């Protein structure tokens, strides 16, 4: 079975990529299995300045998923470049840097600093984090803003740029098209949906941040619908993400129009989930009579 996927800057041996924020920088998972089995790996959002993130509680269980409001905690691009990325160099997998910032300039600064990193193969612009006061989702909720930041990043980036879009918008197709027009090499759909959980004992929001980002199987149909819509209206590849828990789920995302997928919150439910999905994917593709991953992409509308 041919599991390989070729995308701008990314030569994936299979379509499975752990999603940003759900895999840290790989160290903890490298104790559990060989990271070289992964098609790619997307590191936790990196900003120019160190960020402490939000107060706790940051996590809540919800039906078929979870809410998080971590708030882009990270030690900044200099630390990540010096202390985290060298560790990933020893694995045969394609590393994607998820880039975030409180301002447009901060995105550019992170990209400038990572341009000469041999470990990073592509950028994923996080213009869709619902849990920060500045930047994040605020930069990605209109076609104009999304196109602008995409263009600015493309101008300084020396590696392909993927834009991770928010589902918390009225027309994701228009935003996707604006990113494409601004030169995006690919899209990542979708980030978390804004959600809320109430602590009945206090009557107040359970998360210290108030709202959080909903992920897990609860959002899978939303992700699939958005990929299905966007894939029919752009000519750049889509990496699908949102609630994937199994190889069958991966095939649904491929059929909906994704060329590869990211696995997020499922890594918390089962730390070995990416390995299991990679192991099971060939037999699932075979069951539905595909000879390759490529054959399954966009089947829903082709």
């Amino acid at each position: 079975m041919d599991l390989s996927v070729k995308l701008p800057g990314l030569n994936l041996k299979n379509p499975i990529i752990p999603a940003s924020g759900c895999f840290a920088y790989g160290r903890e998972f490298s104790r559990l299995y060989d990271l070289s089995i992964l098609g790619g790996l997307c590191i936790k959002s990196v900003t120019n300045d160190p960020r402490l993130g939000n107060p706790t509680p940051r996590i809540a269980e919800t039906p078929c998923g979870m809410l998080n409001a971590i708030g882009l905690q990270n030690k900044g691009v200099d630390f990540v470049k010096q202390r985290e990325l060298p560790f990933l160099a020893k694995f045969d997998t394609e590393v994607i840097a998820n880039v975030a910032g409180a301002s447009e300039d901060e995105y550019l600064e992170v990209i400038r600093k990572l341009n000469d990193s041999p470990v990073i193969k592509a950028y994923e612009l996080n213009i869709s984090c619902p849990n920060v006061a500045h930047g994040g989702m605020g930069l990605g909720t209109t076609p104009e803003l999304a196109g602008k930041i995409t263009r600015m990043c493309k101008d300084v980036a020396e590696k392909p740029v993927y834009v991770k879009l928010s589902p918390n918008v009225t027309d994701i197709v228009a935003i996707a098209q604006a990113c494409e027009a601004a030169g995006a090499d690919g899209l990542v759909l979708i980030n978390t949906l804004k959600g809320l959980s109430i602590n009945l004992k206090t009557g107040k929001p359970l998360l210290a941040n108030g709202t959080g980002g909903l992920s897990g199987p609860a959002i899978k149909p939303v992700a699939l619908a958005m990929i299905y819509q966007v894939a029919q209206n752009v000519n750049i590849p889509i990496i699908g993400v949102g609630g994937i828990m199994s190889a069958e789920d991966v095939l649904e995302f491929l059929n909906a129009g994704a060329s590869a997928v990211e696995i997020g919150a499922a890594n918390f439910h089962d730390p070995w989930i990416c390995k299991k999905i990679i192991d099971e994917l060939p037999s699932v593709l075979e069951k539905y009579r595909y000879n390759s991953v490529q054959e399954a992409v966009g089947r829903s509308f082709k």
Partner: protein
Amino acid sequence: METENQAQILSNVEIAKDIWKIDLETPQAAEVKPGQFVMVELPGYFLRRPISVCDTNDGVLTMIYKVMGKGTDLMTTLKPGESLNLVGPLGQGFPVVGSVDAVLLIGGGVGTPPLVKTAKAWLEKGKKVDVVLGFNTKNDVFGLDLFAQLGIDAHIATMDGSMGTKGTVLDAIKECNIDTEFVQACGPLPMLRAVQNAYSKGYISLESRMGCGIGVCMGCVVTDNGGELLRVCKNGPVFPIGKVVL
């Protein structure tokens, strides 16, 4: 080393009000160090629940858990012969090393269980072990039998005075004239704060709401005295006294 295992339930019984003891058969038992925890998958729930390991014996892992919500409530319905998926053991437990002659173990409520295996480990090293446990009221008290099996007569404090010393664990320690300087403690935050104020040598174990349990999601962070963020699940749950801002 942490592994995943479908552990068979040997027994699951209520030992005090809303406090349950579950025994599971799993090869993971042999890997557990005192004070470590496992992430328990509950059918129908997305996030695993972190539960500390109380004790291990010949391939049997014992946990004592409190019914906190729907997830742990569901756990009480599980019967012998059924199984639970466990990931673990996880985290940094209580170090059972050092030149101390005596150890004082302090437990509060459902923070008591991990002290059982810890006590056992210190006894095996030939150290003197005192145990002081605090609860709200007599009906909440559990674990005396577990320490008695080790030959330890645990001292009890209850807030309402219905059993043992009236007051906190620190009141009980004073009343019992225990002057051991090295402590290891697990319990609710107010108790840990009091222990951290009263003692300078030893360790405390924190409870936390967790996402992954393996150190990647940053859901359970606490701040240390240098302003660094530490993960309860990976850098802890056990920290040296004075290390973490409580």
